[in-house]
């Protein structure tokens, strides 16, 4: 086992332990907050696959989250499907939506794609409001509040553990996807389309697959958003426009093209969104969170383009930079050779 394997194993074990034990240290309200952190972890992991690994910009990821949320709310609220059974459906429906969103990606690139996906996010609330019978219109769509099975945990603890189970699974799936053949192909498409094509990678197929997978992640995130949002979805909750931008902020802060910083990006979204970060920093309450979101995005992209993941690996690299680590473990002779 190499040193990086050990570090990775340690990091994963620490994350799982932290997730398991955290509810003991926080109050009931904070448990729902951290349940939302899990939602954002899943959504950022998805966005990172399409934007960070495959290099296709999506400014419309919030729309995919919305689709997932509505799938769960409509199935559970109008058709009596149990909430947990709606999650795979939400993933499938959002995945299909992602496939449709990926179609323009085949002909467009870079900025044009950003433009189209941004347009999708901006018009999603209008669509949700228009088809009133199907979506509940402006009033939104609710379903029965989720109750924990048995009496072991409280309602909020159940939301927390339920969401985090999916978040950890999503991180594992994302890691398995990007470490292998698929991830290699994605990175090739991102780094050079010409080189990728000449290596036999079908650009169309891999772009579509990247969009579909990332949207499926967003669908699961949306489904859990609906459940954690006290079983309620409306055109503004989740807000596709804001969420699209926030997720991008989260992904950039986390570090595009790496899975290590995702939890940090997700924490930022939740605690900046709810205004807690402002309280901790003792800022005047009247400053809107959006201002900091934008400022953080600009500052991070200018100063730390590789995000938290880049910082983490730089910290990990510090040990290796220490000059006396030779393979034999003995420091080499110092000074000028006398031979």
């Amino acid at each position: 086992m190499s040193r990086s394997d050990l570090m990775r194993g340690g990091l994963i074990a620490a994350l799982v332990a932290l997730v398991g034990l955290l509810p003991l240290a926080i109050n009931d309200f904070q448990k729902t907050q951290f349940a939302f952190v899990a939602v954002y972890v899943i959504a950022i992991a998805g966005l990172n696959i399409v934007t960070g690994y495959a290099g296709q910009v999506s400014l419309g990821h919030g729309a995919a989250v919305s689709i997932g949320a509505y799938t769960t709310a409509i199935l559970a609220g109008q058709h009596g499907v149990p909430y947990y059974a709606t999650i795979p459906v939400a993933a499938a429906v959002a995945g299909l939506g992602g496939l449709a969103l990926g179609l323009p990606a085949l002909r467009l690139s870079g900025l044009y794609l950003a433009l189209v996906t941004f347009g999708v996010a901006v018009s999603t609330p209008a669509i949700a409001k228009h088809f009133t019978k199907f979506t509940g219109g402006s009033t939104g769509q609710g379903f029965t509040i989720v109750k924990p099975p048995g009496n072991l945990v409280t309602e909020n603890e159940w939301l927390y553990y339920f969401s985090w189970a999916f978040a950890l699974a999503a991180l594992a799936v994302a890691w398995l996807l990007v470490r292998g053949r698929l991830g290699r192909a994605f990175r090739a498409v991102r780094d050079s389309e010409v080189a990728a094509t000449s290596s036999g990678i079908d650009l169309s197929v891999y772009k579509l697959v990247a969009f579909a997978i990332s949207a499926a992640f967003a669908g699961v995130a949306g489904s859990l958003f609906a459940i954690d949002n006290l079983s309620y979805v409306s055109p503004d909750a989740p807000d596709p426009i804001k969420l699209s931008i926030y997720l991008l902020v989260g992904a950039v802060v986390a570090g595009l093209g790496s899975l290590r910083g995702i939890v940090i990006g997700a924490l930022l979204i939740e605690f900046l969104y709810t205004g807690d970060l402002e309280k901790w920093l003792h800022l005047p309450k009247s400053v809107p969170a959006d201002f900091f979101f934008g400022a953080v995005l600009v500052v991070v992209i200018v100063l730390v383009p590789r995000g938290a993941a880049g910082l983490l690996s730089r910290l990990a690299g510090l040990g290796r930079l220490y000059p006396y680590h030779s393979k034999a473990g003995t420091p080499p002779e110092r000074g000028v050779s006398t031979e």
Partner: protein
Amino acid sequence: MVAFTWSELFQQIVSGLSTGGIYASLALAIVIIYRSTRVINFAQGEMATFSTYIAFWLIHDHGWPYWGAFFATLAMSFVGGVLLERTVLRPVEGAPVLTIAIVTLGLLVALNGLTRWLFGGETQVFPSAFSTRAIHVGGVSFSLQDAGFIGLAIVAVALLWVFFQFTKVGLAMRGTAINRDAARLLGVPVGRMLALGWGLAAALGALSGMLTAGSVATFDPNLMLGVLLYALAAAVLGGLESPIGAVVGGLLLGVVLNLLGTYTSFFSGDMRLVGGLAIILVVLLVRPAGIFGRVTARKV
């Protein structure tokens, strides 16, 4: 939906041209920045909203006359645009296009927050320079405001055209847009030209913001989000690189969306946004270069 009459049709075309003038000025702002930096400024709408609040603040809190506030806002927006380029965009100059696009997105969110912070998030009433009194010209009736908006848009575009076509600075800016390195070799201060482009774009955006607020009478910090989508659609329709294209695209879009909203029940109200998106998609998939753009070949 309304029953079809010819006078109704003409009326809707005139009112479409009037909203189209607003889209055209914001689209032109986007095109000016795109031409010189290859970046779509997603913050263009929020910059316009911020400018609109400055005008409102001058009129409402300080009792300025409308036109005084109007021109003062244009000037301040110009300076603001130059400052934004110098401070926020300059550090990422030469970075990948995507990085710069993300920076402008950050600017969008930050400016929206700043507007709420400084001016509050409530809905306000914005005065219009023109009365909404109807004028009748040969059976077609339209408001003085519609005529005024179209006139202002035409004046702005004409001034810009004269500036780009007949002044030395305008020539230097066009040179920078076409080939930055060559322009630099010829002694054009490229950095200053880019900043100037942002200033002009900010002033144009301010114009579209004040007109939008005047046309809908009430406004809040989310005033320009929808207009931004229409302006992007107009810019894409016109070819993204062509200033004339942006203007024609804006006017065309205003008319088409207005007619769609009048004669179909589907694309009315908020669903106009979906109409705007549909136009972006159709143009990009059928003729990505737009009406006035050049078709360029790309590898792969």
